[in-house]
């Protein structure tokens, strides 16, 4: 019964919340009131926006030596997660069968595992660092911890279900994914979508003012 619920209503509900939540969030960003910048433009905003989207992938020189762990672990985690999400064979198969109707090249099994390990490594180190470092601990909210923990649980349950043979484990993974999806729009996890517009906005703002960012 629980299985039916997880595979059925909850799945659709979580998708709906996810989709609607994201749309609503993004719309609210676009529609939301922005203070108009009345100053005279000293540069063009478009190149600045585009440049910033990418330039922010590279840490600021001054900061780099201070946040090595965050950079390394951060990249490990995000790259690993990206590979897992979009190039692990079961995920591709799932996307293919449920949404897209086409598939693409997938990681071999060992590549899948390595990606998972890389992501776990990054996530755990970042989480512990957040917890251990006085400053980050001070500036972290419950929401941040929650986001990390939910992501971790999604990954962990996925890893438990690696054999793809036990429906209980698959359900567990799916359930955690559903929680993740529901939580997603209301949390800092939204940065997966908002990082582009927010960087672009900052970049545009800077660009307009003639500041390189």
């Amino acid at each position, binding site marked *: 019964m629980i299985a039916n619920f997880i*595979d059925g209503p909850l799945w659709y509900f979580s998708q709906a919340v996810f989709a609607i939540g994201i749309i609503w969030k993004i719309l609210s960003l676009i529609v939301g009131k922005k203070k108009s910048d009345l100053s005279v433009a000293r540069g063009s905003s478009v190149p600045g926006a585009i440049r910033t989207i990418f330039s922010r992938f590279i840490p600021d020189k001054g900061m780099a030596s201070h946040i090595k762990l965050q950079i390394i672990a951060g990249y490990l985690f995000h790259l690993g997660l990206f590979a897992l999400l979009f190039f692990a064979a*079961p*995920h591709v*198969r*799932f996307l293919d*069968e*449920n949404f897209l109707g086409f598939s693409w090249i997938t990681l071999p099994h060992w590549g899948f595992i390595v990606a998972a390990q890389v992501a776990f490594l990054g996530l755990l180190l970042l989480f512990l660092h957040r917890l251990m470092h006085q400053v980050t601990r001070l500036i972290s909210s419950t929401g941040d911890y929650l986001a990390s923990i939910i992501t971790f649980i999604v990954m962990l349950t996925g890893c438990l*279900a690696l054999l*793809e*043979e036990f*429906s209980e484990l*698959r359900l567990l*993974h*799916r359930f955690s994914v559903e929680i993740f999806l529901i939580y997603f729009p209301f949390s800092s996890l939204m940065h997966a979508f908002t990082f582009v517009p927010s960087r672009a906005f900052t970049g545009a703002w800077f660009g307009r003012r003639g500041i390189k960012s």
Partner: protein
Amino acid sequence: MKLTKTSNKVIDSSFIDKKGTAQRAAGEALSRRQFLRSSTLMAGGAALGTTLAPGMMKKAEAAETAKGNIKRVKTICTHCSVGCGVIAEVENGVWTGQEPALDHPFNKGAHCAKGAAIREHGHGERRLKHPTKLVDGKWKKISWDQAINEIGDKFLSIRKESGPDSVYWLGSAKHSNEQAYLFRKMAGMWGTNNVDHQARICHSTTVAGVANTWGYGAMTNSYNDIHNSKAVLLIGSNPAEAHPVSLLHIMKAKEENNAPIIVIDPRFTRTAAHADHFLKIRPGTDVPIIWGMMWHIFKNGWEDKSFIKQRVYGMEEVMQEVAKWDPAEVERVTGVPEHKVQGAAKAMAQNRPGTFIWCMGGTQHTIGNNNTRAYCTFQLALGNMGVSGGGANIFRGHDNVQGATDLGVLANTLPGYYGLKPGSWKHWARVWDLDFDWIKGQFDGGSYEKKGDKDVHVMNTKGIPVSRWIDGVLEDKKNIGQKDNLRAMIFWGHAPNSQTRGTEMKKAMEKLDMMVIVDPYPTVSAVMSDRKDGVYLLPAATQMETYGSVTASNRSFQWRDKVMDPLFESLPDHTIMYKLAKKLGIADQLTKHIEVKNDEPVVEDILREINRGMWTIGYTGQSPERLKKQQANWGDFDFTSLKAEGGACDGEFYGLPWPCWGTPEMKHPGTPNLYDGSTSVAEGGLTFRARFGVERNGVNLLAEGFYSAGSEIKDGYPEFKADMLKKLGWWDDLTADEKKAAEGKNWKTDLSGGIQRVAIKHGCAPFGNAKARVNVWTFPDPIPIHREPLYTSRRDLVEKYPTYEDRKSFWRLPTRYASIQAKDYSKDFPIILTSGRLVEYEGGGDETRSNAWLAELQQDMFVEIHPRDANNAGIRDGNDVWLETPEGAKIKIKAQVTRRVDSGVAFSPFHFGGHFQGKDLRDKYPKGAEPYILGEAINTAMTYGYDSVTQMQETKCSLCKITKA
């Protein structure tokens, strides 16, 4: 979550009977045979049986179980000549299960790797799926109509330009009897004798040698009759791999009769591993080893003197030849020491009757016919012929190579070994109800050869044998004995990699105007050459997708039922033949008395026509009705005698082994053991055939004081003719109709069968009662002698045992012997190269290498070399090596270092193909039709060499050098 272990309760010990075989509960629910089983497999051979992979986020879907009706079809394995029964379980037209035929008289349910994997036919994943044509180097799908039209048009234009002999009809031992017959008939109507099949390169020397010794060129006894043998001698034969189920019978003799098993072979085969005595000879020294054994037999007086006196002609001359082979000379030539040879001779002499088994190790030599006759002589000397437990048990290769040979898919004979003489054509013209002159007119007008001063008509001239088609294409036009070169080849179920001289074959293929390949698989023919066009692949159905009769090695006919409809767009061979004949304008003549339904000639009608004409070898009594009845009741036949006791076929032998004399109405039971005089002819007894006249140089050729049980003529007698019946006063035993048909005819040409009936009624064999001859005065070597192979490593023996002189025109082609032997290659190519079979594969291997269950077991082409040779060349087990032969071919294969072969000998299996001189041709196959396993064909490297009588290719004895790749 409660786990139920349901299998606990389903098992009931009552299923096991005393013999340890399974008792089948009648009407047992076979519910497990879900249709799903095959349909899912056809969808891609998914990993069933191991995982139920629900996918990561996907629910496991309960498989739909569609329960259909299960039909059990009795059919016959299509791999080797043993003729194992197979029970196919078919559900909704899909072959879903294979059960052992535990009551089949040949195999009792037993199968080798190939037979046990035959259900793979039901998948056909790697089959050729539709007619395909090569256009600019690309395979293009075409329709059947287009294919037949284009092929037919080309044939007709070649016919116009170069005559009918420029099209070569290469048939198959995989055809059913009816298809083989139709194929030969079609070639005749097209107007050529350029028609042949694998028997040429498999047992043609046997047929020639054996038929010329005692009358018929077939296995004399049966696999089952080996149960009665007191000794078993195998030479050049490895049944443990080539005919594994025959070991079931050989083991029975070994265990129950204490029969010593003696194996003579250059290689320690898997058969030798189970033998009591093993003689490892140098390849190509069969005659010396046989004469060496007979030296001991004659020396000790072990020969059967009364048998020789009564039933053998020419043994004195053999004794003279044998006298030259004293133990020292035998050891010098063969390498086998005296005590071993003597041991073998003594074992055979003291344990009679002993059977003598040979295969391609003996036949595929330039002196193959000498070898086979030497074997026959050995058995005659010991009096082992014509007795149960004795005989010359020649294990044939393909499932129907015996039938295809009998039905004359050969360049030198018409169906039933009638030969090509005008009388033979006239006989068949009568059977076919066709005008003889029309047939004659189909042939090329002129003459290619002279007999004395007289021109011989093309129709009566032997064609080019399959072993030499390459030369028929490549040889200068003025050197060949026909109007023009071969310009089109039709490979109808033939693997080119089973033929030697691959490099030249590639050239020949490229020179042809057109190649037509009719086969369930693309075969190596499709990829070997660098042609860009002019190649047609036509998908033929396998024998599992059609029906008809098949002749096992022991001359037994078996009826095959159709298991399923042809897969994909494939069509049965006889349907394709009819379509082609229609295009060529000979369909009406081809099927004059054969009903045709939807372009498919009715198989039963073809068999009835065969029955009407094949008097020589008694293919006349096996009507479709009798065969079907036997098939339905195959459990009634005795495992040893093959005789039915009671039941619907009471008194008949299984498969009505030919000769099954007279008409079907005569109800002759078939002849289980040839030339066995202990029973009457009516019950399957026989004498040696009077085929070579009644006397020669004043010596009587008829049997003396010997006759079969119940014979009214108590001595030898010639073959029966109308006049002879009159002289004997038996003419009036014929009915009025029979008299009309028999007048002026003999036992072979009397279409009413009256002469045969009356002869048998009086206890006589229709073909007479003569001596076997060990002096075949019509052959190049009347008494078999040893001759060194063309490529020999023993130059010291060449002078004493030279090969033949070159011949200018032999089967229409110049043929070289001495000119090759003259050159010494043994310095550069020090290792003798021989070839043979693997149990997992068969023939050229296209079918079996496309069968995943078999292919997994043999994944690499290899060459076996002795550790000494390997070490000398710096080769380790598993290394890649180059194998080069004197004619310039160079193939890349894996080394298998083993003591199976002696130092100085290398062995390689011949089933591989798809690589050519180090190049992988996988990309050249039509998509999805390439076999799972490809490899170099050893015959790419095998060299020139042809038998002096039949043009059998030499594959067992060449030279090579092996270097690390």
